């Protein structure tokens, strides 16, 4: 309570030093979490977190703030479950209320093949200790009285995957909370400082333009990062630049199996509470939740085309409205206040890429976060920090290595990640 009346700066500003032990590119939840756990778990605090714009200006401030662990693969489930566990304790740990509301999460199925998909997830989740189960119309209606369970919708709801520990969080607060904790440990956060080049073996002159596709970086060691505020000597760089991960990685000559597609969302005017569960429909390509302020947040599937545009489009807004009203027709006269877009780094298997790059000492990836990055900020940060500090890849991260694409050992999460936020 004391801190309520103490006016203290959340994070300080610094002159950029000439060298750091670790430079993290991107001050969203992933970059800041990595910095936080480097300091907290491993005592590494000579760290700079670089951000092109303001803190959390990328996808950390654009996602729909849904946290869940009900994934499908034996690799994905424990990973996201660990993240959920870290989130559950994070407000206390950071002494900063993240407004995490574990209200429960329902993934709706409107076709029998979707119902089968939910069964696979439910059972896999249960075996791996994640609370989720398939429920049917009667129970769904009880949990969500506002949901239209009649046969009016073109595809009526047949079943749902109910995941009680899932919920929503105040996404900006997560960024601020981590940033403050980083600052208290001496980690430096540098907003409005853009990384422009990555030095390898003492040179930033590496010309990748003629390099063949694939893993085309020069063998060697990271030596520096060039920024708009000057040059930094460092042996360790972490790429946490969601949306621009490929562009940043190209600076190190590492091409990634990632395409970038916008993902749109919108928010309504505040309403008195009518919905206290997160509702997702993969068949209808929409997800909706109501925040503690009363706003309804609605999101769409990723745009069909690759783009770096962060502008909302009218057809997608219409689509979000259409499908929202399939589920909640009584919202027809509720106003949309804002629409926006984030850009998502999509991998072929809908799983992230975390870890080092063979042959390039000191370069670390925390990328390919598609539409599910925010959920995984704490777990990715904590275990990537362990990897950086110890040089050993933690078991949880092993399946998400870059080389899985060469080895064709994909972690197929499309069924549980696409449009399921």
């Amino acid at each position, binding site marked *: 309570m004391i801190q*309520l009346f103490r*006016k203290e*700066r959340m994070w300080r500003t610094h002159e950029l030093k000439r060298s750091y032990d670790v430079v993290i590119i991107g001050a969203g939840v992933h970059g800041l979490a990595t910095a936080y756990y480097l300091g907290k778990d491993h005592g590494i605090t000579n760290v700079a977190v670089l951000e092109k714009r303001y803190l959390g200006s990328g996808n950390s401030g654009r996602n729909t703030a849904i946290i869940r662990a009900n994934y499908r693969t034996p690799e994905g489930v424990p990973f996201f479950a660990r993240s959920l566990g870290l989130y559950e304790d994070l*407000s206390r740990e950071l002494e900063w209320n993240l407004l995490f509301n574990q209200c429960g999460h329902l993934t709706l199925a409107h076709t029998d093949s979707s119902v*089968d998909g939910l069964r696979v997830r439910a059972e896999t989740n249960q075996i791996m200790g994640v609370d989720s189960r398939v429920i049917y119309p009667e129970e769904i209606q009880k949990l969500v009285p506002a949901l239209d369970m009649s046969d009016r919708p073109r595809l009526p709801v047949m079943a749902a995957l109910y995941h009680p520990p899932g919920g929503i969080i105040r996404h900006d607060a997560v960024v601020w909370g981590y940033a403050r904790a980083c600052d208290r440990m001496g980690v430096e956060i540098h907003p409005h400082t853009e990384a422009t080049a990555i030095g390898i073996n003492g040179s930033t002159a590496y010309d990748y333009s003629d390099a063949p596709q694939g893993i085309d970086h020069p063998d060697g060691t990271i030596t520096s990062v060039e920024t708009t505020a000057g040059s930094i000597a460092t042996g360790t760089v972490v790429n946490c630049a969601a949306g621009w991960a490929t562009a940043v990685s190209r600076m190190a000559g590492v091409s990634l199996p990632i395409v970038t597609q916008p993902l749109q969302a919108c928010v309504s005017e505040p309403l008195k509470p009518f919905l206290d569960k997160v509702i997702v429909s993969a068949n209808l390509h929409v997800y909706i939740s109501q925040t503690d302020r009363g706003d309804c947040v609605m999101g769409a599937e990723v745009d069909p085309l690759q783009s770096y545009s962060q502008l909302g489009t009218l057809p997608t807004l219409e689509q979000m409205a259409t499908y929202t009203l399939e589920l909640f027709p*009584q919202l027809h006269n509720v106003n949309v*206040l*804002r629409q926006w877009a984030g850009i998502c780094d999509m991998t072929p298997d809908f799983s992230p890429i975390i870890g080092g790059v063979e042959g390039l000492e000191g370069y670390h990836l925390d990328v390919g976060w598609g539409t599910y990055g925010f959920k995984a900020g704490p777990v990715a940060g904590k275990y990537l920090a362990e990897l950086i500090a110890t040089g050993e890849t933690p078991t949880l991260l092993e399946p998400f290595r870059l080389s899985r694409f060469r080895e064709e050992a994909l972690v*197929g999460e499309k069924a549980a990640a696409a449009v399921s936020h």
Partner: protein
Amino acid sequence: MSSDSGLRHSRESGNPSSANGTTDGQSAVTFYFNGNPVDAQASDTVASALYRTGRRVFSRSFKYHRPRGLLCVAGRCPNCLMNVDGTPNVRACTQPVQDGMQVTHQNAKPSLETDFLAVAERFSWAMPVGFYYKTFTHPWMWHIAEPFIRRAAGLGKIDRAPDPAADHPYEHVFLYTATAVVGGGPHGMRAALDAAAQGGGVVLIDDQPELGGHLRYSSSDTEASRTSPGSNRGSNGEESENLDDLVQRIHETSSITVFTSATCFGLYEGSLLGIMHRSPESPVAQRLTQLRTERIVVATGAHEVPLLFENNDIPGVMLSSGVMRLIGLHGVRPGERAVVVGNGEPAASTAKELENAGITVAGIVPPAQVVKAMGRKHVSGLQTREQRFACDLVVMCGDWVPDAGLVAQAGGSVEWDAERAVFATGNLPDGVSAVGAVTGESLPPAVGLALSTDSNPKKVIVCPCEDVTLHDLRTAVDEGFDHIETLKRYTTTTMGPCQGKMCQQAAIDICARQTGRTLQETGRTTSRPPTSPVPLGALAGQHLHPTKRTPMHAKHDEIGCVWMDMGEWKRPLYYGTPDSKKESVEQEYWAVRQRVGVIDLSTLGKLDVRGRDATKLLDKVYTNRFSDLRVGRARYGVICDEAGIILDDGTVSRISEDHYFITTTTGNIEFVQEWLEWWLAGSGWCVHITNVTGGMGAVNVAGPKARATLAKLTKRDLGNKRFGYMRCRQADVAGVPSLMLRIGFVGETGWELHFPSEYGEHVWDAIMDAGSEFDIRPFGVETQRVLRLEKKHVIVSVDTDATSNPIEADMAWVAKLDKEDFIGKAAISRAQNRAPREKLVGFVMDEDVLPPDGAVIIADDQPAGRVTSVRHSPVNEKVIGLAWVAAELAEAGQAIAMNADGRRVTARIVEEPFYDPAQKRLRQ
């Protein structure tokens, strides 16, 4: 409170509003406020009618439940949000009255005058900015507090339970015009006339019920115009043009289409305007127009924002433009005794207009002199540094902020104009121009923040939507939220229903002063659509969710079937009643296995592929080879992506040397067509791909008596010699030209028939007739699934997913790795050369128990695979299925385990199909 009975209307002659009859309507309408009847004039809005009856408190604020009265009277601020006929958050000040309308207040219990939740303000000292983040940091505290906070939040109410019967008439319209002009004030009207003179169609869009902009309520004489931005100040002839003349010229120009009561809420990529029409005509409630255009003229003008002083939000403290609207548009006298807060000309002319309306002006006070407004539920006075005025109306001559959101959305810049002290349009994108006040021209001199940075008064409301005070913003900046975007997110300023219209300018100003940066450096937050709130219903339009029906749909209904959805299609799941599934499926099953059955396959995707390079394209896209497929033959084909993942399957029939007929799965037809065209693009090959799905009906007639049945309907020799397995022939069937394919998805002798869909019912009837002597039965999707499962025939996207390749799916034979190249060849070759990770296998349950589709295979208490299809096999009298299992388990005879009926059950892997492994019956 006063009524306006004695109000002398200020502008008799030449006044556009009275000429248009907006103020002289008689008491013609009765609506209900909280159940009590309210008499109103036809030209009234809900707010003006309520104000006339003496109502001054129109809402309670979001956080502290402070009483709020009318402020902007233009639909921009959050102060008059009410529920109208069940619609929450309606801006009462722009909502026209209608007879019988039911209006209720929001967010106050029990009434607007007495709101128990106003107690929140007593604790405002304990709720500084960031309150929620800084308290309840222990999860258990938050779990207790959160439900209370949640219940107190929100504004409008909606029905909790949906009403499935409700029909909401919304519609969408798609239009094109050469020029769109947004804003029907004098500048917009002139721009529309200019554009029309240059030729091409013009659409002029205004959010008010009539054209005219500020001229509708403010006289256009020089003095008064200074309070109203965008009006013409000079004295040359054109600018003194009368509003009526302008409106008349607009209406007389046939190439100009006028949309009034229509809000342009977004300017999207590709010069696409989103326009929302309120009640265009009965019975349409709202219409959304998507307007494509070449040129856009933004003439959206500017809006007035409140001044900052203590208690600047209490009822009776109004914007000068709001006061003028009440007087000029609605003939309502807002008060008896007013104090004008403002500088120079604008303040003087406002005072004059007030006096013309019969209101006593107690004083004109420069903003810097104001200390605070007095009063609780209504203003009773104004304290200045020098004196205290008693008054019942405080009129703020605030700064004018250009409505430049559309320009920013279009990619134009909105820049700080230091000379005029406004953020106005800067660089404009191609095709977009701006005229009038939105460019910053002819706005009255800005007041800015009259407060000095050292004073720190309480309850200076900057953001009326969210109750954010000056103190909150300053504190937040000091805490490090010194970027305008983080300041927004931390304090929630600009995030409320007014979308920042009332508060953004002040927030930028405060942020700049507190950080010592300029306003240009501080910048604005990103302008996002919609610029005005738009209802979800209008965005969604009509409830149009198409259902595709096969040509034989009515026949299935006649017989009586249980329908299932397959994509947009309706298909019979089986014939019978909802509770006859088991028996119906079994009867259908035995009909096919022992006699003859017929299934409607019209939903299959169908492509007609022709051209001299068609074979090359198919050889490239399919894993199979078609260059050696002889004319008159059909072959099963699989499509994979570059990673070797199975995308779709179907049959490819060679009709002639360069003409193929392809079937795809029901859900993938659009994808397969795009995929073929994608790989065709740039190849230089001559291939024409036509989707004939809707034009062709299809059935499969299968079973030992299929030949005998069809032989009655066609002259074509169906004998094995002339029409063997995997052959295709064109033939008349029941007099209808058809394509016959001899294939066997269900594992019996059978023909797939494709024919023009017009003849669907005729062909169906003919087959049923011909088959009657063999007791033919129609069968549905569920029966087909059992039949094909016994044959271990895979259904793509049921038995495969986004990681399945043909090798692991036990379909290695479809991938012709000796072909020169095909999509996915490299990946499939690699897959063949490495140890598989998992495999698709058949299994038989050890006992008579039916696990659900999707059951997880369990090994060592860990997931080790999943069941994709599992059914009771009548012929085997066992439960059989297909499952993905870890490669080390995928040996014939191996036991696997899964959960069913709440316990662990076991099954054995089998290699052979469960029925007719030698394929004898197919070929009979």
